[in-house]
């Protein structure tokens, strides 16, 4: 085996090794990414409500915090 053939052989071997490693990395990354996407965000809870009914509250509704018509009229 000549020196050139040996160098060629080493280079081919390296390329092949890199290719195999790349394929394995791609496969594992995709597999894990799918698993991450499937993980649900379980530490956030949706909210509950124990407040009054709006039908009870509406009895007390009145206009407040509004534009003061009288005050604006006096200012103009």
């Amino acid at each position, binding site marked *: 085996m000549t020196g050139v053939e040996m160098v060629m052989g080493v280079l081919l071997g390296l390329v092949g090794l890199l290719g195999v490693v790349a394929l394995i990395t791609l496969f594992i990354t995709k597999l894990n990414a799918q698993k991450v996407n499937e993980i649900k965000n379980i530490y956030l809870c949706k909210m*509950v*409500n124990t*407040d*009054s009914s709006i039908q009870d*509250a509406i*009895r*007390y*509704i009145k206009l407040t*915090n509004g534009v003061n018509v009288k005050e604006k*009229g006096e200012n103009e």
Partner: protein
Amino acid sequence: MSEMHPDRASYEVIWDKVISEEISNYQTVYTNCIELIPNIKEEIWEKYVSLNNHCKSNYMRASVVRLDRHKVAACYMIAIATLRPMRFTKKIDGRDIPLAINETLAITVGLSIVRAFAIAAIQENGDITQEDKDSLMKKFDDGIRVPDSVLVNHGAYIDNYANELFFTISEGSINVLSIAHELYLLEVITKMS
């Protein structure tokens, strides 16, 4: 008694006693300067229903059929501020009016709703005496308290709040939960005053 939610009958009361009345007030203050968008009453209702359902679907547990007071009020506020029901049709004294009237209308409606709910909750509270109930309810007589000029280092609180609504809506970043949180804090300020 089971209720349908969102509740249309309640909206009719809110429309008559708050929204419609406040719009009339603005039209009185700025005589002949304001026009309304067509079908405003139904537009607000439909937008509110959409926001209400979005809230329930995305933020609340499946068992929840109605929202708490602050989210209800926030949905109404966002519906009104987004639709912008009032338009200025002319200048006053040759100048544009630097007033976010739709946003301030939204704030008025939101605070009126929170106040009504707060009073209802006080009335229903079986853990406090009638004297304490009367004392608490008195704090809401004049509406929800907002920080006064001593506590606000630039402009008026309501004007700043109106600006916030305008810009967050314009930028597409308004959120029911944030507005509800602000309303909650204003209710707490009123209770603790």
